[in-house]
Structures are given as structure tokens and as C-alpha cells.
């Protein structure tokens, strides 16, 4: 009985390799549990004195993980362009018909639009003091526009202004990151004066409010474009069929 026929060489090598990999991963996990597990949070919390925000979570998100935000913004941009590519090929030459809409929703959305947008702006500019930040505030603003589109579907946003704001804020974000790199030798370094902040002081934290405002503009405009494409296509199709 030949061992080679029952168990080919390839399988033996593969099993040895995979078990070695598994063992090494297990060893790494054990090491993490003994050495690193208690210290990462403490390191970040001690470094929080340098970044000087009142909110430790914010400093982790914008400084130590600040480079992730660039990736998130890229993902969002790709999603928006994909949706625009898929949904924007309906003919918009058909004549517009004003649909009968609910009176209460119409009035209520007009009343609430300014309030919701104001609340989104509050979330964005208080991002370094309170829970929240650019992404959440941008989504809140987009929700206000969703409400507007639900109330009257034959409304349209100006795409040129949205695209301009989105691209300008993206460019400005990269510029802020690069200025930090040249002045402080760190990407996204905090080059503005930042005394140690306290809760309640709006102007504090150096470049963090700037970053959050830029991210808020970008996310808000992109999400509004997504919402508009999703709620528009149905309307145009119905009108064209009728």
C-alpha cells in the first residue's frame, strides 16, 4: 500500500502549511491577549492630551484613524457615481405632470426642512464636543431632502452646485492633510493652535471642526444626489407611461 496514492504530496504539504498558519495565528492572538490588549486604549487616551479635544473618540477618529476617512469618502464617491450611472438614463423629455400630494405632508415637510437642516449643521459643527460629526450630520441633511422629495416629486436639486461643493470639499480635505504633513511631519497634523479644549467651547480643537465641516459638506451633497436619483426615476417613468 503506497502512501503516496492515498495521500498525494500536495495535500500533505497543504495541510502542514495550513496548520502552521493556524498555529501562528493562534500564537499571535495569545500574544495580543497578554501584551497589547490592555494598552492600546490607554495609549490613545494618553495621547489625547496632545490632540486636545474634549472628546476622546473624536480625536481617535480624526487623528489616529484620520487616513481611513479618505478611504470612506472614496467609497462613497464610487457608490454615488455608480448609482448615477445606473439610474440616470431615463428620458427627461416627457412633460411634467403635477401629482396630487398629501396636503399635510407638503406643509409639514416645508416646515421641517429648515429645522432638520439646522439640526444637521449643529451636529456637524459641534462634532468635536458632542457625539456626532461630519458623516452623521451629512446624512441628517440628506434626510431632510428625502422628506422634500417625498412631499413633492417634481422638485429638482441643482446638480452643478452640489458637484462643485462636493469636489471642492474633497480637494480641501486633502489640502488640509498635506499642510499638516509639511508643517508637523504627520499627515493630518494639527497645525492650528489648539489649547486643551473643554466641553462648551465651540472654537477649540484646532483643525478638527474644519475637517468635520468639509466631511459634512461632502457626505451631505453625495447622499442628497443618491436620494434624488432613487426617488426621481419612478416619477419620470410613471409620467412617461401615462
Amino acid at each position, binding site marked *: 500500500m503506497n502512501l503516496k496514492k492515498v495521500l498525494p504530496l500536495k495535500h500533505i504539504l497543504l495541510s502542514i502549511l495550513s496548520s502552521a498558519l493556524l498555529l501562528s495565528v493562534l500564537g499571535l492572538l495569545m500574544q495580543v491577549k497578554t501584551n497589547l490588549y490592555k494598552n492600546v486604549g490607554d495609549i490613545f487616551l494618553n495621547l489625547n492630551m496632545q490632540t486636545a479635544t474634549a472628546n476622546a473618540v473624536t480625536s481617535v477618529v480624526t487623528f489616529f484613524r484620520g487616513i481611513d476617512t479618505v478611504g470612506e469618502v472614496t467609497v462613497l464617491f464610487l457608490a454615488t457615481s455608480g448609482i448615477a450611472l445606473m439610474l440616470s438614463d431615463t428620458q427627461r423629455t416627457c412633460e411634467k405632470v403635477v401629482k*396630487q400630494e*398629501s396636503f*399635510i*405632508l407638503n406643509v*409639514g415637510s416645508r*416646515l*421641517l426642512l429648515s*429645522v432638520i437642516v439646522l439640526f444637521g449643521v449643529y451636529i456637524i459643527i459641534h462634532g468635536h464636543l458632542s457625539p456626532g460629526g461630519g458623516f452623521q450630520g451629512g446624512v441628517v441633511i440628506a434626510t431632510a431632502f428625502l422628506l422634500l422629495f417625498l412631499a413633492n416629486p417634481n422638485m429638482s436639486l441643482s446638480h452643478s452646485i452640489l458637484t462643485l461643493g462636493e469636489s471642492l470639499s474633497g480637494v480641501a480635505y486633502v489640502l488640509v492633510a498635506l499642510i499638516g504633513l509639511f508643517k508637523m511631519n504627520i499627515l493630518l497634523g494639527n497645525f492650528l493652535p489648539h489649547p486643551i479644549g473643554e466641553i462648551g467651547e465651540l472654537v477649540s480643537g484646532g483643525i478638527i471642526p474644519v475637517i468635520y465641516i468639509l466631511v459634512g459638506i461632502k457626505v451631505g451633497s453625495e447622499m442628497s444626489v443618491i436620494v434624488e436619483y432613487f426617488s426621481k426615476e419612478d416619477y419620470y417613468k410613471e409620467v412617461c407611461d401615462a
Partner: protein
Amino acid sequence: MLVFLGYILGFLGVALFFISGLGLLRMPDTLTRMQAATKASTLGSLLVILAIACFEPDWTFKLIVLAVFILITNPISSSLLAMTTYKRFYKHIYNTSGADALKGEDK
């Protein structure tokens, strides 16, 4: 004294929540369930928010703004939902009074 008033208001609001939950569970129809649920829970949430304002007088401004938000947003969604449910199920409603304000509405 203010804390005592706060507890009274809070338990009143929670009792209204309980009533709304009970009505939502026991009523036979969608429209009657809506009738039981939305009004009682709106008043209950207002009372609970007032109770917290009694506990902590510093938060009063924020809590009043929150109460105004609830008062604006909640009737919009409830009325839209009631309208849609009526259009869907109005044949099955047992109508004794003969009054039907939404009869002429399209669709």
C-alpha cells in the same frame, strides 16, 4: 417638591404608554389600533419629557425643543398612515353613522 411633581408626571406618562401598548395589543382593527397607539403615546412622551425637566431644570430648554419636535413630527406620520390605511381597508369598516369625510377623495 419639584422632584415629587416630576415623579407624578413621569408615572402618569408611563401609565399612558402602558395604555397605548395595551390598546395596540387588544384592539381588533388597524385603524382602532392606530387610534389607541398614537395619541396616548404622544401625550405620554410629552409628560415623561416634562418629568425629566422637573428633575433637572438646567436641561429645560433642550427638552422643550425636543417636545416641540415630537409635537410637529408625530401627527404628520400618523395622519399619512391613517389616510393610507383608510384607502386600503375602507370597505371593511363597519360604518353606522353614515358619515364619511374622505369619500370623495380620489383613489
